[in-house]
């Protein structure tokens, strides 16, 4: 009886008694959910256009952030380093298309998945070899990102919001909106959607698959760079981020592999759910639930909707 009370009643009583804490937890959840969503967005871009499940997206985030910080440490002005990092991400996209995707075209999915593991390993080794393996601090001030907290007195207490998180939310929204416009209004964007629908049909109307793949990987690289900057500003820039990047996978499950809105909604659900569970129910089982809670939410969703919230319906034929 006591256990039932602790599981089903007590957390809600706590929520009602201290609404400021609830709002704070919700905000924290939204912020981390946004970062998950950004990583998932990179996955979705590549999966839509090439059908490749790009495991290296998480590493691309770290690699982009590391390149930016590394170039700045080498004595470059911040914005020159930023521009050069964008060039590096383009070079990466180009190389991946040439060296990995082109020879493996038309192979089973799992082989391409495995190849992105190869990219992951290579990028970890390369990043650490060039820029050193120790954690670095993101150059927040040099990029004119705001810092410090804003405190609101509301909900019978106070809620603290980091300015950086607001900036991240604004930049992320602008980027998603920009991607949306790019996909629906421009010539290349329409070509991308055509490729996503059917490779063969796109080829037959004269769309170059190779070119599209480079563009998509470059777009994913840019998303990775933005994610890397904001994530790096919240914690250190190091390859330990890799484990957190795995959190993007349950986000994909919720949102479906092919939906950009799905990635964002999924990310927010996972972020908020995980923070609420850890804060209100975590102490009952000894804490640390955020290591697996996201996956369990995803698993429960999958049992009812195997294609995710926004995914395309899976139709099987014999």
């Amino acid at each position, binding site marked *: 009886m006591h256990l039932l009370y602790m599981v089903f009643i007590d957390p809600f009583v706590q929520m009602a008694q201290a609404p400021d804490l609830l709002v704070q937890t919700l905000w924290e959840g939204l912020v981390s959910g946004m970062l998950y969503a950004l990583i998932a967005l990179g996955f979705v871009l590549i999966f839509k256009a090439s059908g490749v499940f790009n495991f290296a997206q998480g590493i691309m985030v770290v690699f982009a952030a590391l390149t930016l910080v590394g170039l700045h440490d080498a004595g470059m002005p911040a914005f020159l380093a930023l521009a050069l990092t964008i060039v590096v991400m383009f070079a990466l996209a180009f190389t991946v298309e040439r060296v990995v995707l082109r020879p493996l075209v038309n192979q089973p999915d799992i082989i391409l998945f*495995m190849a992105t593991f*190869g990219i992951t390993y*290579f990028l970890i080794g390369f990043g650490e070899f060039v820029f050193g393996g120790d954690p670095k601090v993101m150059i927040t001030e040099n990029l004119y990102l705001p810092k410090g907290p804003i405190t609101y007195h509301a909900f019978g207490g106070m809620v603290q919001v980091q300015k950086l998180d607001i900036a991240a939310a604004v930049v992320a929204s602008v980027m998603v909106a920009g991607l949306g416009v790019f996909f629906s209004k421009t010539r290349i964007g329409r070509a991308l959607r055509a490729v996503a629908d059917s490779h063969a049909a796109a080829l037959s109307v004269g769309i170059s698959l190779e070119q599209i793949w480079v563009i998509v990987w470059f777009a994913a690289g840019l998303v990775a760079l933005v994610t890397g900057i904001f994530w790096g500003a919240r914690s250190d820039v190091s390859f330990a981020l890799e484990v957190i990047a795995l959190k993007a996978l349950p986000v994909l*499950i919720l949102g479906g592999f092919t939906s950009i809105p799905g990635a964002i909604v999924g990310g927010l659900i996972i972020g908020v759910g995980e923070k609420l569970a850890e804060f209100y129910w975590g102490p009952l089982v000894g804490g640390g639930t955020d*290591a697996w809670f996201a996956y369990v939410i995803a698993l429960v969703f999958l*049992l009812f909707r195997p294609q995710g919230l926004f995914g395309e319906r899976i139709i099987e034929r014999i």
Partner: protein
Amino acid sequence: MLYREAGQFKTDYVRDQAIFPILQDRIGIAVILTIALALPFTENDFLLNAVLIPFLIFSLASIGLNLLTGYTGLLSLGTGAFMGVGAYSCYRLTESFPDVNILVWIVASGFVTAAIGAVFGVPSLRIKGFYLAIATLAAQFFLEWCFIRIPWLYNYNTSGAIEVPQRELFGVIITGPRATSETRYYVVLGFVVAMTWLASNLVHGRIGRMWMAVRDMDIAAELMGIRLLPTKLLAFAVSSFYCGVAGALMVFLWYGGAEASVFNINQSFTILFMIIIGGLGSLLGSFLGAALIYIMPIVLREAPEAIGLHMHAATVEHITFMIVGALIIFFLIAEPAGLARLWQIGKQKLRVWPFPY
């Protein structure tokens, strides 16, 4: 000419059902087994401890995952956690009942893992492909969390780690710090040979055919009268059994002690690399993949020293990462079907030798 099936007739059912129907295969396997049995006499402790024992254990885990992913077509990323279940349950069992033979508990821990694996295999009926892979990630992270948060599993040790106690078999110490590497090697070898033989019989029999039918197209398999849920659950259970035994062997006969981080997600990925590089749906491929993925970094790490280059350990580590990544991509491009396929191509070359075709 060197490898000819021609002229080797199967004149009765016993020969038809033989595991190695070709004479050359029988000779080959006999040679390999003899070498495996003779290797401890080189008295090279590094070779046994750091190369052969881990290689055999990883091969066993790869066979386990290959039964699930390669033969049944269900992608799993929970291998590391299932190995952990084997290790922790074996530890728990031998601590509670120290008088029972340790080999019995290693096998029993396989059955415990099989039960847990079957539970986490239930979603596989509705979920397929990458979605299933992520569902098994839930198993990976949840079980790993259990290894840390449930102190009963590691017998309330203050360190939070499991320490392998000393156990004997016929008066010979086989586990614990005082066991010689030769004894441990022979025990591991015995397990691996027996379980590979078992797996070979499984995949060539009715069960294996059912798994492969499900892999190739599950709806068609269902229409042919194969019940999907029992078949998929059986694949999960058998695969987990292999992983569990491999995990128990890993801690009891190789590491000598372990904590939860040994069974993390990277362990799962390593085993997955092994079967994809080695060849999906091939027992031989499990061994080849384990050899390549496990032994290659060791060689790469030792190589600069051997040719007289002195580099920082960290630098060597980073370069090893780069080379491993590049080699994975290289092997996939060169032969996407894995090393086992290369061996088949080689066999064909041996058949027609000295002619080109």
